[in-house]
């Protein structure tokens, strides 16, 4: 708790780059935005893999091409998360390769979930700022 408070203070003072939605780089070559259908599918995926264990508090949506694999998207965020002290979360509904979603949790009970649904042109990707319910 003390660590979380200290991090919050340092973040407030601008001395710590937080692990939050705004700080994440977009996937390489991505276009901003996704269709309403894709957005709905991404939100449904998030709810499914987390078994309702997260509340979405913010979102950034992207469209990516076929040449960018899911692993490249998730790995970059994973490396940033670890660098900034966030920890990966085991998702209860995980199904590798079929449900493309990963989540990381920072010290304040909030975090980020990245999800992707496949589209004919490649994929729709969401960065969701989430709060982990049950805290």
């Amino acid at each position, binding site marked *: 708790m003390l660590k979380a408070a200290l991090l919050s203070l340092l973040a407030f003072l601008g001395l710590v*780059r937080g692990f939050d939605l705004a700080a994440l780089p977009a996937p390489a070559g991505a276009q901003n935005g996704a269709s309403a259908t894709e957005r709905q599918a991404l939100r449904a995926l998030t709810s499914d893999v987390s078994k309702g264990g997260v509340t979405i508090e913010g979102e950034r949506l992207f469209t990516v091409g076929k040449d960018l694999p899911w692993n*490249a998207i998730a*790995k*970059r965020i994973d490396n940033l998360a670890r660098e*900034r002290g966030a920890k990966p979360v085991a998702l209860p509904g*995980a199904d*590798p*390769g*079929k449900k493309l979603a990963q989540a990381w949790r920072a010290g304040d009970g909030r975090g980020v979930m990245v999800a992707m649904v496949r589209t004919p042109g490649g994929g729709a990707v969401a960065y969701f700022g989430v709060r982990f319910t049950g805290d």
Partner: protein
Amino acid sequence: MLEAAGAAAGVASRFNLDSLLAGSAVSIPGFRIPIDGMGGGVAKPAEVRFDAADLYGAQGPQAADIRQDALGDCYFVATLGAVARQQPDAIRNMISFDARTGNFTVQLHDGDGNPQSVQVTQAELEDNLARSGGSTADNTGLDGPIWPAVAETAYAKVHDSNPADGLAEGYNAIANGGWPQDAMQAITGDRGDEIRYSEGFFESENSALDRMAGQVDAALSNGRPVTLWTVPENRSLWDKIRGNEGTQDGLVDNHVYTVEGVHKNADGEWMVSVRNPWSTNMNVGEGHDTASATMEVPLRTLVDTGGAEAFTAGPAPR
């Protein structure tokens, strides 16, 4: 291999001439010949989509057949790529196909290096493709080269306590990271040797780099498969506080690459050529993104930044 347009279902069926000559059954539109007799009971019909002819391309098993898409098993598929590059016959000898059953058999090794035979069914292969596994087949829509999918499926299967209910458990076990030496042992039966940077007490950096590069070069020259395990580069305390990334080497952190070679460039610097199992180096985010699957990185940079944990050199050809 003849291909004929499918029947009412619109599904292309494949006639396997080898299977016909071997006397095994194949699937013909509208007239399924059962090929899998389960314990003497009623035989189950089966579609045989993948067979021995789909395992490799015209040039045999190669690292370029690897494309890691949606499973987090870089340590495994990068090692497959390294073995394919250095010892393609080892890949050929690892996988066999039974035309009678439509199953593939993969020879992996357990944690003690003992041989471990694993059957992979057509359905399990289709499942691997549905998961966008480590082959190119799920990207191209073609039926091959399928050998990475076969090997990866087998690896997931040995980590699954009940394959009869699907391989989600097995993929959960293998697709969230792993260790290069574990993969080397599973594939070759030998954990291999780690080559790490070190400086002797009075040794210069140049000498230590020469020694390290020499070890990697010798391993490759001797036909040994080599991978590179990368980790986050060193950061100063201020970098950590500010969330800055420090000096970057251009490679993905916490990843495993297939090593293709080491050589000295025109300036006399050792360069390491590596292949990303992603088949691309886009979205690495370290200032050297490229669509090419391969990259060259100065060995000195890897050492100075601390971004290289170790090379893993597998066994020589048997």
